């Protein structure tokens, strides 16, 4: 047994990124196949996966799930005509895909290094893997950037109006795209100067072996998929 790195054994989830990726796909398929019992089990499994990665996110998702269920119940008891079914459909869909969102959150919170190393193991071309990790990072940060832009608009006294949709679009879109392009340029310069394009066998700082928990989670996921298909 070799030395362990400064981050091994730390709290960032015990599951391998590839396990999380597989679970995301399994959760997706199950979400639209499963009966109530299987759905509940998949949901519980997804919450456990999230709890393993981040207790704070687990609590946030739990609260959101409660709200989504509350909305479904509310719509069931309030009839607002033709649109009721549309809203109900959307709300039910949100509840239905919750396990996918949970596992997806866990995957997004996985360290870029781990994701990159996993993709390298799958022989994804280096540039594509780096591009994918950068894309994921920006997806993760997009909400925060939009919030800052809104703040910028408020201090400038600019109000987007639905009556001037092109202007409203420009106000949000232009700073967002510019910011993302600037940050991506710096980031790429930085990773290139750290030898990301070096033509050699890459190594990984983190321990990336599959553990017992990976086996258990994947086993549970596949078993539930089997039950869902069989039922």
């Amino acid at each position: 047994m070799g030395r362990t790195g400064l981050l091994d054994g730390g709290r960032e989830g015990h599951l391998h990124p590839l396990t999380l990726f597989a679970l995301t796909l399994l959760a997706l398929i199950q979400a639209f196949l499963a009966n109530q019992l299987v759905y509940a089990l998949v949901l519980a499994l997804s919450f456990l996966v999230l709890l393993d990665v981040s207790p704070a996110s687990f609590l946030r998702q739990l609260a959101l799930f409660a709200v989504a269920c509350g909305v479904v119940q509310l719509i069931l008891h309030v009839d607002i005509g033709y649109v009721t079914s549309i809203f109900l459909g959307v709300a039910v869909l949100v509840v239905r895909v919750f396990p996918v969102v949970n596992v997806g959150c866990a995957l997004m919170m996985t360290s870029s290094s781990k994701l990159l190393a996993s993709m390298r193991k799958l022989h994804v071309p280096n540039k594509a893997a780096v591009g994918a990790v950068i894309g994921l990072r920006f997806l993760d940060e997009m909400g925060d950037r939009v919030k800052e832009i809104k703040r910028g608009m408020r201090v400038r006294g600019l109000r987007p109006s639905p009556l001037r949709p092109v202007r409203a679009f420009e106000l949000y879109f232009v700073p967002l795209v510019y910011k993302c392009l600037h940050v991506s340029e710096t980031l790429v310069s930085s990773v290139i100067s750290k030898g990301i394009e070096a033509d050699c066998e890459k190594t990984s700082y983190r321990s990336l072996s599959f553990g017992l928990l990976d086996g258990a989670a994947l086993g549970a996921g596949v078993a539930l998929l089997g039950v869902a298909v069989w039922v």
Partner: protein
Amino acid sequence: MKLKDIATIAVLGVIGFALGMGVGMITGMFGALSMYVSAGFAAFFVGPVYTIMARKVQKRGTAFCFWLIYGVLYAIMGFAVATPLCLIAGIVAEIIAGDYGNKKRVWLSFSASMFIYSMHMIVFVLVLGSDGLATFVESISLEQAQQMVSMYTVDMMVICVLINIVTELLAGRFGMFINDKFFEKGAKESRLG
């Protein structure tokens, strides 16, 4: 293609997809109307992203990579059936765009590829039928699929095609407008003299 270009495509591809999905979900709430305008309306949000990316990178393969990201993200979201259409859209966009130096070709490459993509529901209905739809598209039940197929009459499909041709062309033009106004270097007139 350099890593910088790949990163630009990845970042803008992700923004484009997020905008397209967000808008698509909102228009999806407008029931039957969304069948006509859903993709066309979202194109006005995706068009600027595509145009900026194409003009910024200006390398062979840019458009294809953009649609590849779309296809992969759709697959991850359980809509893998749309992926082949995204790839076809990418190939067509790539052929039309040429070397990305001509702005009109970039505009047309977006409009054409977005049109192909926007036809996904019609293609699925025609090719898969209700049983196939319910099988391959995880978010649609058999009942919904049958209802959907019954709604796609010949008249409706013709209207849909015509509306989408117009909206995709306009969306491509809008993309070029945003690109020229904010992202392209060029002589602009001063109001200050």
